[in-house]
């Protein structure tokens, strides 16, 4: 029993990491329909932001909190630049967007390699996040609890912003009916750019948080990217709650399979299950879309 509950927590923790990595995609891919393969590199940029900030602010606690804010801006800025220079002209060619952003990802990876070197760099976690909390016999590291809370806060914040802020309203309006929004005086360009800023910013935040548990190296974004896309696809486009449920379901599934077999098997099973699931429900868990995604 303890094992089951312990694994459940582990799964939730894995899920929250997936969620954090996928949340920005739920906006840019889920809401806008842009397949941004460089999202993983935005996450990586967040990781290195945390590293750079730590070189400046050596107090680990303060640097983590500052990094979260700076990471959001850095990720967001990269997203806006990408949107303004490339994606803007590719909105009618979603599949090509995928390949173009893959190229951007390659460039960013190499850039990181040239700036920071290929070996992983170390981001020191703050003291108050060291150690773990025992829950039903399983010790859950505080870093993971922090990530879980951060993911929850990001989801709640994002949902609230979409619901209550004027900007959020505009984002939803543009997603639901682009032409109508445009001819109602809403600038869909600005709105797209803002959506992209927030979505990419969330990738930056995810990157900062992920330095708490993983390595900071040029290829780190790659390891989250496919998972993140699958979460958004399985969750259904245009809905945050779909992504939330899909992330946690995938996390719990993966850690359960991993516990009984191997981590490799878990990964393979998770992928295959999602592919199978999408055969049954190609629209994902939930789907509300006005603009159909190619």
């Amino acid at each position: 029993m303890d094992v089951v509950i312990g694994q459940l927590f582990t799964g939730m923790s894995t899920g929250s990491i997936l969620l954090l990595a996928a949340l920005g995609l739920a906006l840019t891919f889920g809401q806008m329909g842009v397949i941004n393969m460089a999202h993983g590199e935005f996450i990586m940029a967040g990781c290195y932001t945390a590293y750079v900030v730590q070189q400046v602010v050596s107090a680990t606690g303060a640097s983590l909190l500052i990094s979260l804010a700076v990471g959001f801006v850095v990720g967001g800025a990269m997203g806006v630049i990408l949107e303004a220079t490339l994606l803007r002209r590719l909105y009618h060619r979603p599949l090509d967007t995928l390949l173009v952003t893959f190229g951007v990802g390659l460039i960013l990876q190499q850039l990181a390699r040239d700036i920071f070197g290929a070996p992983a760099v170390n981001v020191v976690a703050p003291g108050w996040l060291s150690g773990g909390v025992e829950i039903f016999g399983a010790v859950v590291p505080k870093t993971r609890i922090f990530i879980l809370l951060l993911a929850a806060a990001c989801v709640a914040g994002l949902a609230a912003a979409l619901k209550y802020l004027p900007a959020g309203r505009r984002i939803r309006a543009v997603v639901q009916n682009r032409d109508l929004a445009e001819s109602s005086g809403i600038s869909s360009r600005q709105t797209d750019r803002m959506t992209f800023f927030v979505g990419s910013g969330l990738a930056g935040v995810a990157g900062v948080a992920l330095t708490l548990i993983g390595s900071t190296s040029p290829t780190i974004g790659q390891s989250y990217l496919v998972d993140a896309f699958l979460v958004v696809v399985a969750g259904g486009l245009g809905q945050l709650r779909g992504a939330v449920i899909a992330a946690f379901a995938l996390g719990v599934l993966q850690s359960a399979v991993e516990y009984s077999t191997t981590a490799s098997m878990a990964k393979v099973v998770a992928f295959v299950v999602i592919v199978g699931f999408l055969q049954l429900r190609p629209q994902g868990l939930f789907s509300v879309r006005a603009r159909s995604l190619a």
Partner: protein
Amino acid sequence: MSGDTTSDVRRAAPGGRWRTMGGFAVAAVLLFAVAPTVLSDFRLGLLAKFLCFAIVAVGIGLAWGRGGMLTLGQGVFFGLGAYMMAMHLKLADAELYGGPGSVPDFMEIAGVRELPGWWAPFASPVFTIAAILLLPAAVAVVLGLAVFRRRVKGAYFAILSQALAAALAIYLVSRQELGGSNGLNRFRTFFGFTLNDPVNRTMLFFIASGTLLAVVAIVRQLMYSRYGELLVAVRDQEERVRFLGYDPATVKVVAYAVAAAFAGIAGALFVPIVGIISPADIGILPSISFLIGVAIGGRATLLGPVLGAIGVAWAESSFSEQFPSAWTYALGAMFVLIIGFLPRGLASVTAVRALRRRSGDGGRQSVPEQREVAV
């Protein structure tokens, strides 16, 4: 715009026939006469490897350029073909050098003395070749029917096929009976011919060349047939095709299966030519890399993918040596510039010019515009 595109295809067909035949002749002379005389054994082997990529590219050109399906998981089919061939070669070597009943050397080293049961059929060359020709296509048919029947959209299809490529690579790494991360290598013979012999390696080059010409011919027939028009129509206006009474899923599955079969064959040829197949050759990265050559050459053209694939592979092999970091930038930039700004590839630059000269109508040509392409 679909109407325009289809009529362009029609228009191109009859006039282009002689030109295509001429192209074939030139290509055949280049491959069978010129290349072996001017290239060193090593360079010839390298070119043979590029030809394998070109075979994959021809299939991608059909499925992606003509059919609008972004096949991000060709590594799966390439890997299937390659591993099946590799298993056969390992078994044949074991039989030849270890005597009847021996297990392949890498298993021996790992302390395995019993051959896993499912390896056994691959001892037969006939079975292996049949499996290489049929299995990838069969997998593609099953996968394609499942996906396209459900009208899964293009982006989904791309992400799913990518996930499958990743899953297969991870799975293969964890299978020690398939060599794990090392993959399968150290092949000594190819259907009885010693691989170390330069003459036999040249023969492999010829086999690859012949295969490439054959797949190009097949795709040419498909492109200019009624089916080819239908495929382009499905790419541009899937709904309309449905209303006309055709099943778009079937149309797409055929192209997808053909592309899969080509990738499988290319994988099978890759093994004796390069001498190794490992999970590193079939994951997400190689799968996406297959696309860039196609995009550069011109995804909807017949020869564009071939030339693009060979060109990119050649450039990678020569430039990555001196400037590994610059090569990554260049590769990234190619994705960005070619696909972002020249979606019809380099072929379009010359094709547009040629058309302009001929018709003077502003040189509009078939545009494989991927707008909201539902796959």
